[in-house]
């Protein structure tokens, strides 16, 4: 395969941040850096190190090497033929679930951990929701010989016990966070507090394309291989660009990683947010769809908040999407209309999880199942408009092993007879 996961230096594309980290400029004002002064020097140091590294062929070469030989990249682009038959057009899956540690997250952490080494720091901290970023961080720390502490909401340590065990086995310290709602946002708060006190020797491996500048842009640069590879693979294997691309969006790292390569193409871009029990209920995390502008974890973006600006607790059946904010570049892409963000409910996601499992033998993460569910809707419409040659490309961001506890409970898989067909059959359209 001729494609590579080559990262490129930060570009000056029309959807990029300016030097202060504003997407859409200070007037539109997404992103920025709303952080304690104590951390500004570290963020400046990180910005300088990141921009320097991305312009250094030696760093980029080492990043490519570790992605290829250690993480197993580039991941394949796979034509899901049986699912395609159901949808009525070509459905392509970017198989990030096949990466080492089972998700796209490994790209980001290998980039940030390599940068940590370059900066001469010996300890990394990370926050995690579902545990995928925590596992990836613990993995990268083990690979590079760094000390690793992972903050995880106490609620999430219970629903993702398998990943907690993996982190422990990899040598990381996992600290359950009991404060606030004891989920991802509180884990981020706690990691930031650690960082304020340890910033001279510790790097914060931020897990998504959110937070203060430069994290949204840096995480995008380390994950953009998803889209760069997909674009090249699609052209090489099918001779065309996809009509539409789709990814799930919690904080939005896999989505921005996919979207970046296609921003200047005539390709429809869809992000699917966790609609939980429905966006007309209080139990969801569909931030762009339902939230208001605000500042959370150092960036101005869409934030689920009450009338006084207090962050609301979000809900998703997927721990990895259960975040009341979203990366600021997504806010910018939504505000400019370049990308479309739609909610997918817990039930729709679980149906898609079952469908993909039955049609392709691929058990996706529940996060990813949101993208699958949304992409099926998009694909069915494309099939009507353009026929079976239409192509929808999905970032299959992670595998579902970690979610089997939730799946067992949701589908009643422990029972002797399991009949999922009524729930999952999608009528082909067109």
């Amino acid at each position, binding site marked *: 395969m001729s494609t590579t996961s080559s990262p490129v230096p930060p570009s000056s594309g029309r959807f990029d941040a300016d030097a*202060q980290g504003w997407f859409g400029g*200070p007037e539109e004002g997404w992103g*920025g*850096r*709303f*952080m*304690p*002064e*104590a*951390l*500004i*020097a*570290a963020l*400046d140091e990180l910005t300088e190190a990141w921009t320097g590294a991305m312009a250094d062929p030696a760093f980029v070469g080492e990043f490519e090497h570790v992605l290829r030989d250690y993480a197993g990249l580039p991941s394949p682009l796979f034509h899901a033929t049986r699912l395609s038959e159901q949808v009525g057009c070509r459905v392509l899956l970017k198989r990030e679930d096949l990466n080492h540690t089972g998700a796209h997250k490994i790209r980001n952490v290998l980039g940030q951990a390599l940068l940590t080494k370059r900066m001469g720091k010996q300890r990394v901290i990370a926050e995690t929701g579902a545990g995928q970023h925590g596992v990836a961080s613990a993995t990268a720390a083990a690979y590079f010989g760094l000390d690793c502490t992972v903050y995880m909401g106490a609620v999430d340590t219970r629903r993702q016990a398998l990943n907690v065990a993996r982190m422990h086995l990899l040598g990381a310290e996992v600290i359950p966070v009991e*404060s*606030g709602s004891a989920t991802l*946002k*509180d884990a981020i*708060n706690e990691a*930031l*507090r650690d960082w*304020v*006190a340890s*910033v*001279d020797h510790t790097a914060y491996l931020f897990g998504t394309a959110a937070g203060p500048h430069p994290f949204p842009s840096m995480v995008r640069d380390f994950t953009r291989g998803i889209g760069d590879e997909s674009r090249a693979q699609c052209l090489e294997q099918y001779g065309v660009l996809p009509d539409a691309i789709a990814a799930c969006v919690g904080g939005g790292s896999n989505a921005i990683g996919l979207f970046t390569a296609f921003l200047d193409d005539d390709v429809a871009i869809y992000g699917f947010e966790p609609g939980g029990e429905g966006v007309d209920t209080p139990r969801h995390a569909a931030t762009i769809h339902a939230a*208001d*502008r*605000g*500042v*959370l*974890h*150092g960036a*101005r973006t869409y*934030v689920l*908040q009450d*009338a*006084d*600006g*207090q*962050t609301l607790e979000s809900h998703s059946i997927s721990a990895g999407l259960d975040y009341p904010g979203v990366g600021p570049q997504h806010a910018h892409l939504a505000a400019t209309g370049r990308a479309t963000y739609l909610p997918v409910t817990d039930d729709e996601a679980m149906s898609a999880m079952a469908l993909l499992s039955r049609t392709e033998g691929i058990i996706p993460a529940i996060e990813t199942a949101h993208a699958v569910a949304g992409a099926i809707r998009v694909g069915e419409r494309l099939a009507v408009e353009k026929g079976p040659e239409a192509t929808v490309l999905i970032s299959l961001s992670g595998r579902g092993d970690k979610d089997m506890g939730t799946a067992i409970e949701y589908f009643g898989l422990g029972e002797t007879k399991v009949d999922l067909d009524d729930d999952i059959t999608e009528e082909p359209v067109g």
Partner: protein
Amino acid sequence: MSAPTSSTDRTVASAFASARAEGRAALVGYLPAGFPDVQGGIDAMLVMVEAGCDVIEVGLPYSDPVMDGPTIQAAAQQALERGARTDDVLRTVEAVAATGTPTVVMTYWNPVERYGVERFAAGLAAAGGAGLITPDLTPDFAPEWIAAADRHGLDKIFLVAPSSTPARVTMTVRASRGFVYATAVMGVTGARTTTSDLAGPLVARTKQAVAEAGLDLPVGVGLGVGNGDQAAEVASYADAVIVGSAFVRTLLDHPDDRAAGLEALRALTHDLAEGVRRA
């Protein structure tokens, strides 16, 4: 609303000037509004005023307080769970400022942005508030707040940290009014057994930046002070000693006996006020 006795009586600058005239540092005391409830918080702050605080910092309880340690977070969370709102914060400011003691609000940025920057500034000024301390808003990201503060004559109290570069100290000093808040430790809020050895050098270079800018801007030191001895030590080189977690802890330690909590608060304030006079 009770009108303040005169506009000069309630400025932070006048409180610092009075302290300086007495040859001592000022004592700045913090409590979150709405803790243990709105009236309970007001009562506590009035005790702190009576017992010797020169400036009161009213905290705006926030769901995601990244600069605060467990003590202040617990109090803020309790306030939120009991329904404290931004309007309650302004009500608290009004009650405390009515004593003539300069009263500033310490707040994370999102609640202000949500309330409306102009509306918040107008409301704070109308309540007799003197200004705002913004732990997650630095001057380079604060043009909207700076403009609103200037329109309403409010102080802009920005923070410097041990990790601040000389250029950032200079920028922060030039943008601040009222005083500059020097965070003495690299870490979150919380009383500590020893004071920081980072504070002295930070205050020295901040004062140098103040002098180079030709300003008359006091430097207060916060994060870690919990008793009179520590206050005396910090007062030996800073213009103000800022105390928060120790006050909060005192109230948290008396959950079921308001009167005992207030008496303990009074005793702690006396100890700290004596400390800033001992230096």
